[in-house]
Protein backbone atom coordinates (compact mmCIF):
# COMPACT_ATOMS: atom_id res chain seq x y z
CA UNK A 1 0.00 0.00 0.00
CA UNK A 2 1.44 3.34 -0.97
CA UNK A 3 1.13 6.43 1.22
CA UNK A 4 -1.34 7.81 -1.31
CA UNK A 5 -3.65 4.82 -1.30
CA UNK A 6 -3.37 4.73 2.48
CA UNK A 7 -4.31 8.38 2.65
CA UNK A 8 -7.25 7.89 0.31
CA UNK A 9 -8.53 4.85 2.11
CA UNK A 10 -8.32 6.31 5.58
CA UNK A 11 -9.51 9.68 4.31
CA UNK A 12 -12.61 8.25 2.65
CA UNK A 13 -13.28 6.23 5.79
CA UNK A 14 -13.27 9.45 7.79
CA UNK A 15 -15.56 11.14 5.30
CA UNK A 16 -17.95 8.23 5.49
CA UNK A 17 -18.25 8.35 9.26
CA UNK A 18 -20.88 11.14 9.36
CA UNK A 19 -22.43 9.89 6.13
CA UNK A 20 -22.94 6.39 7.51
CA UNK A 21 -24.40 7.69 10.74
CA UNK A 22 -26.95 9.73 8.81
CA UNK A 23 -27.66 6.86 6.47
CA UNK A 24 -28.19 4.39 9.29
CA UNK A 25 -30.57 6.76 11.04
CA UNK A 26 -32.52 7.18 7.84
CA UNK A 27 -32.75 3.42 7.40
CA UNK A 28 -33.95 2.86 10.92
CA UNK A 29 -36.56 5.51 10.57
CA UNK A 30 -37.56 4.12 7.20
CA UNK A 31 -38.10 0.59 8.36
CA UNK A 32 -40.37 1.73 11.10
CA UNK A 33 -43.71 0.46 9.88
CA UNK A 34 -42.33 -1.21 6.78
CA UNK A 35 -40.57 -0.05 3.69
CA UNK A 36 -42.32 1.34 0.68
CA UNK A 37 -41.06 2.70 -2.61
CA UNK A 38 -43.19 5.78 -2.35
CA UNK A 39 -41.85 6.72 1.03
CA UNK A 40 -38.27 6.52 -0.02
CA UNK A 41 -38.72 8.20 -3.30
CA UNK A 42 -40.93 10.83 -1.82
CA UNK A 43 -38.18 11.89 0.46
CA UNK A 44 -35.43 11.97 -2.06
CA UNK A 45 -37.07 13.07 -5.29
CA UNK A 46 -35.78 16.37 -6.57
CA UNK A 47 -33.61 17.14 -3.58
CA UNK A 48 -30.22 18.49 -4.58
CA UNK A 49 -29.01 18.07 -0.98
CA UNK A 50 -29.80 14.36 -1.02
CA UNK A 51 -28.22 14.06 -4.41
CA UNK A 52 -25.01 15.63 -3.13
CA UNK A 53 -25.10 13.51 -0.01
CA UNK A 54 -25.40 10.23 -1.87
CA UNK A 55 -23.01 11.24 -4.63
CA UNK A 56 -20.32 11.91 -2.06
CA UNK A 57 -21.18 8.68 -0.35
CA UNK A 58 -20.93 6.69 -3.54
CA UNK A 59 -17.63 8.26 -4.48
CA UNK A 60 -16.11 7.73 -1.04
CA UNK A 61 -17.36 4.16 -0.79
CA UNK A 62 -16.10 3.33 -4.27
CA UNK A 63 -12.61 4.65 -3.62
CA UNK A 64 -12.55 3.13 -0.16
CA UNK A 65 -13.76 -0.31 -1.15
CA UNK A 66 -11.68 -0.31 -4.33
CA UNK A 67 -8.50 0.18 -2.35
CA UNK A 68 -9.68 -2.29 0.29
CA UNK A 69 -10.30 -5.01 -2.27
CA UNK A 70 -6.97 -4.26 -3.90
CA UNK A 71 -5.28 -4.92 -0.58
CA UNK A 72 -7.18 -8.12 -0.04
CA UNK A 73 -6.42 -9.31 -3.55
CA UNK A 74 -2.75 -8.65 -2.94
CA UNK A 75 -2.61 -10.26 0.46
CA UNK A 76 -5.07 -13.13 0.30
CA UNK A 77 -5.19 -14.01 -3.34
CA UNK A 78 -1.51 -13.38 -4.07
CA UNK A 79 -2.16 -11.08 -7.01
CA UNK A 80 0.82 -9.00 -8.04
CA UNK A 81 0.79 -5.34 -7.04
CA UNK A 82 -0.13 -4.43 -10.62
CA UNK A 83 -2.89 -6.96 -11.09
CA UNK A 84 -4.38 -6.07 -7.72
CA UNK A 85 -4.32 -2.39 -8.61
CA UNK A 86 -6.11 -3.04 -11.89
CA UNK A 87 -8.74 -5.17 -10.18
CA UNK A 88 -9.24 -2.54 -7.50
CA UNK A 89 -9.63 0.25 -10.04
CA UNK A 90 -12.09 -1.74 -12.12
CA UNK A 91 -14.17 -2.39 -9.04
CA UNK A 92 -14.04 1.26 -8.13
CA UNK A 93 -15.17 2.37 -11.57
CA UNK A 94 -17.98 -0.17 -11.61
CA UNK A 95 -19.16 1.00 -8.23
CA UNK A 96 -19.06 4.62 -9.27
CA UNK A 97 -21.07 3.75 -12.38
CA UNK A 98 -23.69 1.76 -10.53
CA UNK A 99 -23.82 4.30 -7.74
CA UNK A 100 -24.27 7.23 -10.12
CA UNK A 101 -27.13 5.40 -11.79
CA UNK A 102 -28.73 4.70 -8.44
CA UNK A 103 -28.45 8.29 -7.28
CA UNK A 104 -29.89 9.48 -10.54
CA UNK A 105 -32.71 7.01 -10.26
CA UNK A 106 -33.59 7.80 -6.72
CA UNK A 107 -33.37 11.56 -7.02
CA UNK A 108 -34.53 12.48 -10.49
CA UNK A 109 -35.96 9.62 -12.43
Amino acid at each position, binding site marked *: *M*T*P*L*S*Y*LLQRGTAMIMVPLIVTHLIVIVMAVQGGLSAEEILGRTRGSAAWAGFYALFVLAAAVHAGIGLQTIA*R*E*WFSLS*DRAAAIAGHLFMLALIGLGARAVYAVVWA
Partner: protein
Amino acid sequence: MSGEKTLGVDIWRGGADGRYQSFEVPARENQTVLDVVTYVQRHLDSALAYRFACRVGVCGSCAMTVNGRPRWTCRTHVSRVAKAGRLTIAPLQNLPLIRDLVTDMTPFFDKWQRARGRFVPGEGPRDQLAPVPPDKPERAAASAAIECINCGVCYSACDVVAWRDDYLGPAALNRAWAAWNDVRDGDRTGILKAVSASGGCHNCHTHQSCAAHCPVSLNPTFSIAGLKRASIKAKLKGELAP
Protein backbone atom coordinates in the same frame (compact mmCIF):
# COMPACT_ATOMS: atom_id res chain seq x y z
CA MET B 1 12.92 -42.34 34.00
CA SER B 2 10.73 -44.73 35.92
CA GLY B 3 8.70 -43.05 38.62
CA GLU B 4 9.92 -39.60 37.62
CA LYS B 5 7.43 -37.04 36.39
CA THR B 6 7.89 -36.44 32.70
CA LEU B 7 6.92 -33.93 30.11
CA GLY B 8 5.94 -34.87 26.59
CA VAL B 9 7.37 -32.66 23.91
CA ASP B 10 6.90 -32.59 20.15
CA ILE B 11 9.76 -30.88 18.36
CA TRP B 12 9.93 -29.89 14.73
CA ARG B 13 12.67 -31.75 12.89
CA GLY B 14 14.16 -31.09 9.51
CA GLY B 15 13.47 -28.35 7.00
CA ALA B 16 10.21 -26.88 5.76
CA ASP B 17 9.04 -30.34 4.75
CA GLY B 18 9.94 -31.86 8.10
CA ARG B 19 7.75 -33.31 10.82
CA TYR B 20 7.31 -33.40 14.55
CA GLN B 21 9.23 -35.85 16.66
CA SER B 22 8.14 -36.77 20.18
CA PHE B 23 10.35 -36.93 23.24
CA GLU B 24 9.86 -37.48 26.93
CA VAL B 25 11.94 -35.32 29.24
CA PRO B 26 12.00 -35.24 33.03
CA ALA B 27 9.75 -32.56 34.44
CA ARG B 28 11.51 -30.19 36.79
CA GLU B 29 10.28 -27.55 39.11
CA ASN B 30 12.46 -24.94 37.45
CA GLN B 31 12.54 -25.48 33.77
CA THR B 32 12.30 -23.17 30.82
CA VAL B 33 11.43 -24.21 27.31
CA LEU B 34 15.08 -23.68 26.38
CA ASP B 35 16.02 -26.11 29.14
CA VAL B 36 13.71 -28.69 27.61
CA VAL B 37 15.27 -28.24 24.19
CA THR B 38 18.73 -28.42 25.73
CA TYR B 39 17.83 -31.59 27.57
CA VAL B 40 16.73 -33.23 24.35
CA GLN B 41 19.97 -32.21 22.62
CA ARG B 42 22.19 -33.30 25.47
CA HIS B 43 20.51 -36.55 26.36
CA LEU B 44 18.13 -37.75 23.67
CA ASP B 45 19.09 -36.52 20.23
CA SER B 46 22.48 -34.93 19.92
CA ALA B 47 21.93 -33.37 16.50
CA LEU B 48 18.87 -31.29 17.42
CA ALA B 49 19.63 -27.84 16.00
CA TYR B 50 18.59 -24.78 18.02
CA ARG B 51 19.99 -21.35 18.75
CA PHE B 52 20.51 -19.44 21.96
CA ALA B 53 23.21 -17.27 23.50
CA CYS B 54 22.62 -15.17 26.61
CA ARG B 55 20.06 -17.42 28.42
CA VAL B 56 18.56 -14.40 30.19
CA GLY B 57 16.41 -12.64 27.64
CA VAL B 58 18.74 -10.02 26.23
CA CYS B 59 20.13 -11.45 22.99
CA GLY B 60 16.89 -12.48 21.31
CA SER B 61 18.47 -15.60 19.78
CA CYS B 62 16.28 -18.28 21.30
CA ALA B 63 12.82 -17.44 19.99
CA MET B 64 10.72 -20.39 18.86
CA THR B 65 7.07 -21.20 18.34
CA VAL B 66 5.82 -22.81 21.54
CA ASN B 67 2.35 -24.33 21.47
CA GLY B 68 1.59 -22.14 18.51
CA ARG B 69 2.85 -18.88 19.94
CA PRO B 70 6.20 -17.26 19.25
CA ARG B 71 8.13 -16.84 22.48
CA TRP B 72 11.58 -16.26 23.96
CA THR B 73 12.29 -19.74 25.19
CA CYS B 74 14.98 -18.91 27.75
CA ARG B 75 12.50 -16.85 29.71
CA THR B 76 9.44 -19.02 29.27
CA HIS B 77 8.79 -21.27 32.23
CA VAL B 78 7.36 -24.61 31.16
CA SER B 79 4.62 -24.54 33.77
CA ARG B 80 3.21 -21.43 32.14
CA VAL B 81 2.84 -22.93 28.70
CA ALA B 82 2.55 -26.72 28.95
CA LYS B 83 -0.91 -27.98 28.14
CA ALA B 84 -1.77 -31.23 29.90
CA GLY B 85 1.89 -32.02 30.38
CA ARG B 86 2.75 -31.46 26.73
CA LEU B 87 4.66 -28.93 24.68
CA THR B 88 4.92 -28.42 20.97
CA ILE B 89 8.05 -26.59 19.85
CA ALA B 90 8.56 -25.36 16.31
CA PRO B 91 10.82 -22.80 14.67
CA LEU B 92 9.69 -19.22 14.19
CA GLN B 93 7.26 -18.54 11.37
CA ASN B 94 7.86 -16.15 8.49
CA LEU B 95 11.61 -16.77 8.29
CA PRO B 96 13.44 -19.27 6.09
CA LEU B 97 14.08 -22.45 8.01
CA ILE B 98 17.64 -23.71 8.26
CA ARG B 99 16.99 -26.88 10.18
CA ASP B 100 14.94 -28.04 13.16
CA LEU B 101 14.45 -24.99 15.37
CA VAL B 102 16.86 -22.66 13.61
CA THR B 103 15.71 -20.00 11.17
CA ASP B 104 17.68 -17.68 8.95
CA MET B 105 17.17 -14.18 10.33
CA THR B 106 18.82 -12.44 7.38
CA PRO B 107 15.57 -11.07 5.87
CA PHE B 108 14.65 -9.69 9.27
CA PHE B 109 17.86 -7.69 9.53
CA ASP B 110 17.87 -6.70 5.87
CA LYS B 111 14.47 -5.14 6.40
CA TRP B 112 15.74 -3.43 9.53
CA GLN B 113 18.19 -1.66 7.24
CA ARG B 114 15.60 -1.00 4.55
CA ALA B 115 13.44 0.71 7.15
CA ARG B 116 16.46 2.91 7.93
CA GLY B 117 16.56 1.43 11.36
CA ARG B 118 19.79 3.09 12.37
CA PHE B 119 21.22 6.38 13.44
CA VAL B 120 22.56 8.89 10.95
CA PRO B 121 24.77 11.47 12.65
CA GLY B 122 23.47 15.00 12.68
CA GLU B 123 25.23 18.33 12.68
CA GLY B 124 25.79 18.54 16.42
CA PRO B 125 29.30 18.85 17.83
CA ARG B 126 31.06 15.52 18.06
CA ASP B 127 32.96 16.29 21.24
CA GLN B 128 29.93 16.98 23.38
CA LEU B 129 26.91 14.98 24.38
CA ALA B 130 23.70 16.57 23.20
CA PRO B 131 21.57 17.77 26.10
CA VAL B 132 18.37 15.80 25.64
CA PRO B 133 15.93 15.85 28.54
CA PRO B 134 14.51 12.34 28.95
CA ASP B 135 10.95 13.56 29.26
CA LYS B 136 10.98 15.65 26.10
CA PRO B 137 8.09 14.15 24.07
CA GLU B 138 10.23 12.93 21.17
CA ARG B 139 12.76 11.38 23.48
CA ALA B 140 10.06 9.74 25.55
CA ALA B 141 8.64 8.21 22.37
CA ALA B 142 12.07 6.98 21.26
CA SER B 143 12.80 5.56 24.70
CA ALA B 144 9.52 3.70 24.77
CA ALA B 145 10.43 1.88 21.58
CA ILE B 146 14.18 1.43 21.80
CA GLU B 147 14.66 -1.56 24.07
CA CYS B 148 14.04 -4.12 21.38
CA ILE B 149 16.10 -7.31 21.63
CA ASN B 150 15.49 -8.07 17.94
CA CYS B 151 14.20 -11.52 18.72
CA GLY B 152 11.89 -11.71 15.71
CA VAL B 153 8.89 -12.79 17.79
CA CYS B 154 6.72 -9.97 16.46
CA TYR B 155 7.90 -10.61 12.92
CA SER B 156 6.91 -14.22 13.31
CA ALA B 157 3.51 -13.34 14.76
CA CYS B 158 2.53 -10.75 12.16
CA ASP B 159 0.23 -12.08 9.46
CA VAL B 160 0.96 -9.21 7.12
CA VAL B 161 4.57 -10.41 6.99
CA ALA B 162 3.20 -13.76 5.88
CA TRP B 163 0.91 -12.15 3.33
CA ARG B 164 3.38 -9.72 1.76
CA ASP B 165 6.96 -10.82 1.62
CA ASP B 166 8.25 -7.28 1.17
CA TYR B 167 6.52 -5.97 4.29
CA LEU B 168 9.18 -4.51 6.58
CA GLY B 169 7.52 -5.92 9.66
CA PRO B 170 6.90 -4.63 13.15
CA ALA B 171 10.42 -4.71 14.61
CA ALA B 172 12.10 -2.80 11.79
CA LEU B 173 9.34 -0.20 11.73
CA ASN B 174 9.40 0.09 15.49
CA ARG B 175 13.12 0.83 15.25
CA ALA B 176 12.50 3.38 12.51
CA TRP B 177 10.01 5.14 14.78
CA ALA B 178 12.60 5.34 17.54
CA ALA B 179 15.13 6.66 15.04
CA TRP B 180 12.71 9.27 13.75
CA ASN B 181 12.11 10.48 17.28
CA ASP B 182 15.81 10.90 17.90
CA VAL B 183 16.29 14.63 17.74
CA ARG B 184 20.02 14.13 17.15
CA ASP B 185 19.43 12.30 13.87
CA GLY B 186 20.71 14.04 10.74
CA ASP B 187 18.15 12.80 8.22
CA ARG B 188 14.78 12.24 9.81
CA THR B 189 12.89 12.78 6.56
CA GLY B 190 14.95 9.97 5.09
CA ILE B 191 13.36 7.64 7.62
CA LEU B 192 9.87 8.64 6.52
CA LYS B 193 10.84 8.06 2.91
CA ALA B 194 12.22 4.65 3.77
CA VAL B 195 9.10 3.53 5.60
CA SER B 196 6.85 4.87 2.84
CA ALA B 197 8.44 2.79 0.12
CA SER B 198 6.98 -0.48 -1.09
CA GLY B 199 6.40 -2.83 1.82
CA GLY B 200 6.39 0.09 4.22
CA CYS B 201 4.43 1.06 7.30
CA HIS B 202 1.18 1.70 5.44
CA ASN B 203 0.73 -2.01 4.93
CA CYS B 204 0.21 -2.60 8.62
CA HIS B 205 -3.41 -3.44 9.41
CA THR B 206 -3.06 -2.89 13.13
CA HIS B 207 -3.42 -6.58 13.89
CA GLN B 208 -1.50 -5.97 17.11
CA SER B 209 -0.12 -9.49 17.16
CA CYS B 210 3.28 -7.84 17.47
CA ALA B 211 2.34 -5.98 20.62
CA ALA B 212 0.48 -8.98 22.00
CA HIS B 213 3.54 -11.21 21.76
CA CYS B 214 6.56 -8.96 22.24
CA PRO B 215 8.40 -10.49 25.21
CA VAL B 216 9.71 -7.15 26.41
CA SER B 217 6.31 -5.48 26.18
CA LEU B 218 7.09 -3.08 23.39
CA ASN B 219 4.20 -1.86 21.28
CA PRO B 220 5.19 -1.81 17.60
CA THR B 221 1.56 -1.17 16.63
CA PHE B 222 1.76 2.14 18.35
CA SER B 223 5.11 2.96 16.77
CA ILE B 224 3.85 2.07 13.32
CA ALA B 225 0.76 4.23 13.83
CA GLY B 226 3.17 7.04 14.67
CA LEU B 227 5.05 6.47 11.44
CA LYS B 228 1.80 6.46 9.48
CA ARG B 229 0.85 9.83 10.93
CA ALA B 230 4.29 11.35 10.47
CA SER B 231 4.68 10.08 6.92
CA ILE B 232 1.21 11.23 5.84
CA LYS B 233 1.91 14.64 7.29
CA ALA B 234 5.19 14.75 5.38
CA LYS B 235 3.45 13.51 2.25
CA LEU B 236 0.88 16.29 2.46
CA LYS B 237 3.67 18.80 2.85
CA GLY B 238 5.40 17.35 -0.18
CA GLU B 239 8.46 16.27 1.77
CA LEU B 240 8.41 12.69 0.58
CA ALA B 241 9.11 13.57 -3.03
CA PRO B 242 12.40 11.98 -3.98
